[in-house]
C-alpha cells in the first residue's frame, strides 16, 4: 500500500472531525480488504480519475452520524435518514476536498467526482489494480470507516497516447 496516497485521507479525516465534531478520531483498526465492501451505517463514495485512480468510501455508524448531526446541524437525537445522508455527503466532501488539496500540492493532478450516496449493503471491491485498505476510526461516540482503493496512475498516463 502506497502510504503517500493514503496518508492525506487519514490526515484530512482527523482534521475535519476535529474541526466539526470537536473531538479526535483515533485509528482503532487497519485492515487490507479483498472482498466487497460491507456498509456499516450511512456511507458516501467518491471516485477519482487521473494521476490517482480509484475510489474512497466514508461510512459512519448510527452513533457517529447522530453526533455529527448534532455538531453540524444542531439536531439532537438520531437524525432522519435524509439528514444523515446529507451529513455524510458533506463530511465526505470536506475530507476528500482537503485530501485532494494535499495531493495536488504534491504534484498529483486528477479529477474528483462528487460524493454519491452509497445505498447498497454490499459495495464494490477495489479495482483490480488497487489494494484496498479499511481504516476504522473510533470517536467518543461511534465509529467512522474509511475504505480506500486508489493507485498511482501517473506513470501509465505519461506513456499513454494523447
Amino acid at each position, binding site marked *: 500500500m502506497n502510504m503517500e496516497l493514503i496518508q492525506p485521507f487519514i490526515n484530512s479525516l482527523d482534521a475535519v472531525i476535529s474541526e466539526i465534531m470537536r473531538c479526535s478520531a483515533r485509528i482503532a483498526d487497519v485492515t487490507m480488504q479483498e472482498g466487497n465492501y460491507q456498509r456499516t451505517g450511512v456511507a458516501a463514495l467518491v471516485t477519482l480519475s487521473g494521476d490517482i485512480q480509484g475510489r474512497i468510501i466514508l461510512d459512519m455508524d448510527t452513533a457517529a452520524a447522530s453526533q455529527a448531526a448534532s455538531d453540524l446541524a444542531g439536531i439532537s437525537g438520531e437524525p432522519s435518514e435524509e439528514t444523515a445522508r446529507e451529513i455524510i455527503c458533506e463530511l465526505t466532501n*470536506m475530507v476528500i*476536498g482537503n485530501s*485532494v*488539496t494535499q495531493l*495536488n500540492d504534491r504534484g498529483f493532478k486528477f479529477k474528483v467526482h462528487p460524493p454519491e450516496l452509497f445505498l447498497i449493503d454490499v459495495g464494490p471491491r477495489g479495482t483490480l489494480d488497487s489494494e484496498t485498505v479499511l481504516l476504522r476510526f473510533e470517536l467518543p461516540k461511534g465509529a467512522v470507516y474509511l475504505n480506500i482503493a486508489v493507485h498511482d496512475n501517473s506513470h501509465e498516463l505519461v506513456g499513454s497516447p494523447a
Partner: protein
Amino acid sequence: MVSSVGYQDNILSALQKGARHFVQKPVKPEAFYEIIRYVLSENAAPSPTAAGEAQS
C-alpha cells in the same frame, strides 16, 4: 467562494473568475463572519493572500 478543495490553482481560478474571497471548508464560524463582513465592505477586492490565510 467556499469550497473544500483549496489548492492554489483552484483559489487563483476562482479569484480570476470574480470570486472576492476564497474560504476552504471546514469553515470556522468566527473567521467566516469576519470574511463576510470584509467581502461586503466597499473596499473588498480579490486577494489571493487573504484566501491563503483563510485556509489556515
